[in-house]
């Protein structure tokens, strides 16, 4: 990081150009979210009578309080708030458990080699290519048989098991770059599977664990299909409530309040990215994904 010899070879005008290009791109990347934020401050009528994209005429800050605690989905007029907790109740445990299991599995596959490890790793990794629409009906049968249909626990189970495809992939690829010498030393000291994991591997892991947590958190938080199929009314995740706000056919969609709800629902993932982002890069720099 200290020796950035490549950039030193850049002439001054080159660096200026780089600044212009990268900041222009940055602004362009912001536009879609900016449109949502601006709409969240416009009234429904203003949007219905004008255009979808525009500057607020009257700043409708009340959209936010309405989105948070007032609007109604069917008879329950609680706003987004309880649904945010539902999402958290699924996302947080599923993220933590799937990350830990993925870390142990990745460690076992990469450093503790065992018979059939390549095969099982290949199979688990192939799972990332299996679209979740295809898994919907099989999961219904599984949830019925284990008695977890219409429970948040059922969703946690699904996201944990499915999530292991990604978490195992990420962690295994990271642990592969841990020198075998370290492992040998540990083994000579007589350290077992768990001792080695906790003493040597885990302290080296924060970067990749953060990457994995960010990935899992955003995917589970933003998931809709399972969330709406495997829950009932008041247990629904926040994505379902968001779409519930989008009165589909017979009404003017409430774009103002809807946009405010979108911003609120996106806050947790945005914050995770903002705070985690720093570590995300640090994690990757340490050779995370190879």
């Amino acid at each position, binding site marked *: 990081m200290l020796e950035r010899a490549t950039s030193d070879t850049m002439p001054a005008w080159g660096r200026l150009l780089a600044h212009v290009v990268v900041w222009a791109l940055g602004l362009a990347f912001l536009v879609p979210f900016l449109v949502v934020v601006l709409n969240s401050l416009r009234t429904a*009528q203003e949007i*219905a*009578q*004008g255009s*979808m994209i525009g500057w607020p005429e009257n700043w409708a800050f009340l959209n936010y309080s309405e989105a948070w605690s007032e*609007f*109604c*989905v*069917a*008879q329950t007029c609680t706003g987004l708030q309880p649904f945010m907790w539902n999402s958290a109740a699924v996302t947080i445990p599923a993220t933590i458990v799937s990350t830990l299991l993925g870390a142990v599995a990745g460690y076992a596959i990469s450093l503790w080699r065992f018979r059939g490890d390549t095969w099982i790793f290949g199979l688990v990794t192939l799972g990332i290519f299996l679209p979740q629409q295809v898994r*919907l*009906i099989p999961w*219904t*049968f599984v*949830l*019925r048989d284990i008695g977890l*249909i*219409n429970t948040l626990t059922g969703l946690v189970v699904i996201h944990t098991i499915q999530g292991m495809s990604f978490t195992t992939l990420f962690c295994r690829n990271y642990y592969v770059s841990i020198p075998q010498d370290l492992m040998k030393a540990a083994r000579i000291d007589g350290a077992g599977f768990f001792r080695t994991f906790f003493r040597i591997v885990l302290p080296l892991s924060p970067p990749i664990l953060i990457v994995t947590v960010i990935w899992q958190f955003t995917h589970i938080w933003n998931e*809709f*299909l399972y969330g*709406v*199929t*495997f829950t*009932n*009314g*008041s247990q*629904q995740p926040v994505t*379902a*409530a968001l*779409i*519930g*706000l*989008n*009165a*589909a*056919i*017979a*009404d*003017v*969609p*409430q774009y103002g309040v809807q946009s405010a709800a979108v911003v609120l629902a996106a806050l947790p993932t945005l914050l995770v990215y903002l705070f985690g982002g720093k570590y995300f890069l640090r994690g990757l720099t340490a050779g995370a994904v190879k």
Partner: protein
Amino acid sequence: MMSVHRRSVLAGAVGLMAAPLGARAQAAKPRLTAISQWSAGSDGAAITALGKKFEERGGVWQHSPVPGFTTDMMNKLRAQIISGDPPACSQLKGPEIAAWSKIAPTVNLDATVAAAGYEKVVAPDLARLHKPGGKWSALPLQVYRTNTLFLSKRAMDKAKADKIPTTWAQFNELGEKMKAAGVPYPVANGGARADDGQKFEAVLAGISPSVYRKAIMELDDKALASPEVRAAFAQLRKIADWMDPNTAAQHFSVFLPRFVAGEMGMLIQGGWAQGVLLNGGFKLDDFIIAPGPTDNGKPVFVLNADAFIFWQRKEADLQAGQKLMAELVMMPEIQTMYSQITGSIPVRTDVNLSGAGWSAGQVEAARTLKEAVAINQSVLSLAHNMAQENGITAAMIDVLTEFVKNKAITPDQAVKRLGEAVASAR
């Protein structure tokens, strides 16, 4: 909890032995579990109002809305059926009622329907859809006409026109007039698949309701290849040429400001568009509502209806709830309340719409329905999944939406493709 459970098991056993529910089931406090898509807007308000009525009669109302597309609601329903726990009733419409009632047992509502003398006040096509195998197992809630013509007042003024077109020839004349007078797009539209299908069905039903019945509802091969279907495609091409090519996949409501401003002239939509216009802050004198053009000069009604299907449950309280719900949705005053909230018209053709709370458009549509039923000119909507099961509907709409979006396809090619799509989906 425990006592309710035990009682319901007991009553369920009794119910199984004796088909007529009798006094025993009546003793339980009626409870209804329901799933629907109606989570917000006037749909949400209407179902909530219905729930209040249910509670007023001592029932326990447990509605859980499934937001999103109809497929999301169906996925939920499938999951509940698989887990052996179907809702007491759920939103379902058209031929899907018959299809789904094959995968899980439904309630036989014949006695309740007969007691209400309901069958004779419901359009025969509609009644047929809700009694698969000859037994009532579902009930329609409300009716919409999909071939409603909305005219922009300002576009009419621009074109110096005051006559409402009643045939497709007059429609075309007015379109030319508007175009010449500087209305950039004589036809307003949305970009969703259903929008394209809806225009086709309005045209074909207007050209010949009997061919529509044969071709679209009965999938008669000869009718599907008939000159009328070809003429409908030619008319659809005309309409497509008059639409803003830039709508992409936007909802039709996005373009209503331009429609009202007179940049777009004529909108072929369901009756619900009236509510959308009014909720968007526009006034009743910004637009004119009229029945869709019909070439034989007699009323044609392309029918769309929302409905609830009732799933068999053993619990006495749910059975009592189903009976109460069925009785409620057949009542004229409940249908009046429901339609006045959503802007639809009542299922019953004998409801009096002269009272307060009805718009001129609703009164006209209800009258047209009655007249169209009497002369067998009421047909079922294709675009809104009333005419065919979803698999065939989707295959047909594929052809229609491609035809609208691709000007290189000729009406003859389209007729051929429509036939092929039907054959491959069957």
